[in-house]
């Protein structure tokens, strides 16, 4: 089954999605990533106010099969995290692009966005 790859988002090679609104970016993992991980059972989120560099490991997900790091796709400061995921990590499996968001960041280097992939480029990466 092919994965959902919404056109309006940007994507990192490490399978995070980024939704940009002004100087704020919302970040989660892609539908392809959640499908590969299978049922999520644990999510650890970054601390609010933490400054992250693009490519830095900042969160952890654990599924019934494996544990994986999540990387910040951009540089900036964490301003909000999705606390609901801690109690219900399965919402990443059911809705990776909406209820399953991980955290929001204030962009400090908008130039980072140019290094992310478009939906079309990400589809090629995952063979979708």
């Amino acid at each position, binding site marked *: 089954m092919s994965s959902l790859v919404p056109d309006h988002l940007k994507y990192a090679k490490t399978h995070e999605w980024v939704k940009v609104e002004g100087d704020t970016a919302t970040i989660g993992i892609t539908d392809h990533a959640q499908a*590969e*991980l*299978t*049922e999520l*059972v*644990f999510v650890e989120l970054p601390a609010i106010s933490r400054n992250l560099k693009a490519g830095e490991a900042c969160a*952890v997900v*654990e*599924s*019934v*099969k*494996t*544990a*994986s790091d999540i990387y910040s796709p951009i540089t900036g400061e964490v301003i909000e995290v999705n606390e609901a995921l801690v109690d219900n990590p399965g919402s990443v499996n059911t809705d990776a692009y909406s209820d399953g968001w991980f955290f929001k960041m204030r962009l400090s280097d908008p130039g980072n966005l140019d290094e992310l992939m478009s939906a079309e480029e990400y589809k090629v990466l995952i063979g979708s």
Partner: protein
Amino acid sequence: MPKNIVEMEIEAAIAELPDTKTLRLKWPENYDPSFKTGQFITVYWPDTPKYKRAYSLSSCALDKGYFEVTVKRDGKMGTRIVDWAAAGDKLFVIPPVGRFLPVYEDKKHLVCVAGGSGVTPFRGFAREATYRELRTRITILYSVRTTNDIIFNQEFRELEEKNPHFKFNVTCTRLAEEDPWSGRRGRISADWIKSIATDMENTVFYACGPTALVEGTEQLISKELGLPKEQLKLEKWG
């Protein structure tokens, strides 16, 4: 609690490597499930019922009275098991399921590609074939970083002694040049696979381990060797 979930006592917790432990989970009285070598169980601790992890059985279907899983320190569950699990502790177990099953036919050659703790189900494959004195050939191609990362080395060597149709081959990817290891070095390659799988028509490939290794093996086998997907069984761990 659904009827098919069973509480089991850890009969033994065996350190295989500093970061890897085998748990022997004792079946309760009158428990005799129907299951197959190569399947996986899902476990959770009584105090965290929502937090489950699935592990391939490292024992085989002929090992009665217990399940064994071999766990690397990975994530919360792996850390708790490797650092804290001890004989006498109890875990809930969802019985074995899965389709990563050995094809035990006389003419078949099972080539089992493993990375890290991905070797654990192949211990079950080799055990059952050896117990039953089968003629099915089984060859493990095991990729580890260094010789310190080889799980079940001694048991696999003993199975090789007992079973003329079983071979255990290791390749090390990150050994220092001066290391005295005389075995193979480097990643698993198409050439290495070709030298092992000489009768492609009767070969069934299995790959188990990290996603990169399993997908790399899939590419090698389906694209470079041109074999159909029916001859390849995969178990990805993300």
